[in-house]
């Protein structure tokens, strides 16, 4: 599915060049949940940003290849990359609030992705069910145009009132009134094909009451619901692969358990590949089939979850495992950083 070969990424900073990745090799097969673990700064996020070309301007991929289903996307055009992100590969970021647009409803945000990646399907659905394609709100223009009309009408109203010609202002009053009443008048209009697809996307992530949630703004939802909306967005473009960068770090454990269960369920139902980035080895043990351990911009060990946790080969993996409290009161073994220097 996704193959990363000898990936090297540098950052140009004021203090010189930071070598964030020193040759990362990863292969994620179809339909597998792959965990990527490592401590802060080991390069987990940079790996996934490099693979999707989402690096900031100071970052640069200086070597290696990225293959998606055999296609080399290392030097793909920006258009192709936009197709891939959100289309073939869905992405979930750590902090749902910063990734969701606070001034757009869930409906609008998911709708945007659907129009970008699933346009033909929306049109198909519309003609099949004989419903409007995009907007059920027929009389809605873009916010800028709406604002201009409103300002225009109100200035005319005040102008006519000032001139003492109240009757002339009536048509403008009518327009303003209609704009306010519009939402109310439109209640009975059937959902558009796009609306139906959005609701479908939300029910896929097991959000109860998707119709109501579609109308909400992100801040009106709980952390767990926001993360579900993020997952719905990542999957809306019919992604065959999901990259999740610390999807549950900001959540309570009970909610984390629900989200991980959801990712597992969807993965199974749709036979997706998942790359799960986390620093929590427990999460990996519970969710993943295979895991790679990252240290200082390199993969130091890769194996099935069973084997890596039973028989860790690399001393860094061993040190990581030893550092976790696991019941019992004996002193925790602290990894000696000096010893780990050479890899």
């Amino acid at each position: 599915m996704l193959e990363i070969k000898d990936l090297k990424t540098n950052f140009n900073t004021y203090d010189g060049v930071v070598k964030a990745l020193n040759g990362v090799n990863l292969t994620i097969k179809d339909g597998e949940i792959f965990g990527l673990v490592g401590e802060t700064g080991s390069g987990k996020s940079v790996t996934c940003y490099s693979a999707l070309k989402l690096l900031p301007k100071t970052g640069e991929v200086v070597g290696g290849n990225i293959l998606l289903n055999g296609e080399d996307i290392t030097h793909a055009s920006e258009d192709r990359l936009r197709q891939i992100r959100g289309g073939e590969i869905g992405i979930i970021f750590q902090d749902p609030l910063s990734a969701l647009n606070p001034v757009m409803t869930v409906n609008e945000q998911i709708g945007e992705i659907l129009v970008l990646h699933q346009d033909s399907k929306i049109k198909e659905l519309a003609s099949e069910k004989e419903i409007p394609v995009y907007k059920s709100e027929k009389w809605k223009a873009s916010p800028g145009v709406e604002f201009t009309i409103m300002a225009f009408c109100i200035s005319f109203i005040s102008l006519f009132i000032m001139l003492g010609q109240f009757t002339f202002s009536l048509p403008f009053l009518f327009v303003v009134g209609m704009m306010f009443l519009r939402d109310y008048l439109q209640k009975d209009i059937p959902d558009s094909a796009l609306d139906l697809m959005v609701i479908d996307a939300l029910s896929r992530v097991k959000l109860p009451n998707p119709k109501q949630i579609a109308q909400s703004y992100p801040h009106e939802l709980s952390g767990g619901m926001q993360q579900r909306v993020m997952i719905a967005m990542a999957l809306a473009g019919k992604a065959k692969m999901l990259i999740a960068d610390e999807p549950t770090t900001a959540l309570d454990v009970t909610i984390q358990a629900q989200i991980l269960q959801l990712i597992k369920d969807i993965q199974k139902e749709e036979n997706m590949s998942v790359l799960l980035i986390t620093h929590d080895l427990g999460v990996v043990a519970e969710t993943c089939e295979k895991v790679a351990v990252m240290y200082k911009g390199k993969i130091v060990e890769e194996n099935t979850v069973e084997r890596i946790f039973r028989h860790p080969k690399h001393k860094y993996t061993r040190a990581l495992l030893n550092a976790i409290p696991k019941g019992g009161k004996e002193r925790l073994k602290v990894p000696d950083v000096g010893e780990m220097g050479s890899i």
Partner: protein
Amino acid sequence: MSNKILSIEGLRKHFPVKNVWGTDIALVKALDGVDLEIEEGKTFGIVGESGCGKTTLMRTLLRLVEPTSGSVVLSDEITQNQFLSNNLEELTNEELRSFRRQIGVVFQDPMGALNPRMLIKDIVSEPLVIHGKTENMRDRVIELLNNVGLGEEHLYRYPHEFSGGQRQRIVIARALALEPKILVLDEPTSALDVSVQAQILNLLNDLQEKYNLTYIFISHDLSVIEYMCDRLAVMYLGRVVEEADTEELFTNPQHPYTKALLSATPNFNKDKEKIMILGDVPSPITYLDESKAKLATEITEQERLEIKSIEGKGLDYIVRSSLNEVLPLKEVGPSHYARVK
């Protein structure tokens, strides 16, 4: 059986919620009747989900916020029989200063707790200066730094020159400056990597042994809590729903929320039974208007939908609405209390 150093009795803290006219319409019941006894020289853990009132409990303990009702009773160990009253609320200003010397605090975010423009020397000596203990200050600061594994060479550096784990050590050194008897730790390792966390936990255990410190340890990481604590309380919506010695609580949880919490913690046992919590996290707001005041205990429409979505997966579950019923604390085992039927 060792001595109590603090007891918390019926502590409540209600924050008022105002409408636009400035009249109170509702209360956030951050603490709603908490009773706890903290033993000297032991580690007392507090767990619970975000917003259940852990930090508020700590702030009321330090008298950074005034409780709505209830009290914190100090032992003679702390008052040295010098105070007029053992009740935290009735302390005079002078007594409050003396009390604050005996209770140190470590917060979650080490960078937020350290002033980036101050030298380490000044950061660690700040409490000494405030409480006027300036004799031999330099030696004392070096001793404090040595205690946490840092040294003289770090005196003239700024916080940004240190790693996250080292910064947390500096915070601990400062918290210990006035030789407190109690250390309150609010998520001291949540921002740290496991290997650094291991260092800090070991350090805390060493310091406890050396100075017979009492810890109040707040965390949401149950594996850390299990490792550190002798006794612990599980909080839900401003109340303690279960309290027991650590081993007893981990092997024999009684309250449904505790069970779900234990099962939700990721660990290396793949076949362990999972209990999901379904439904929306309840709002901590209680309306003063009677008709809206009570949280519904019957199963909601949303929960019914969620139950349907996990049906046939062989998962156990509890629903949030069932947790809304307030039951009295009952003894369910040896010094093990839970709010169960």
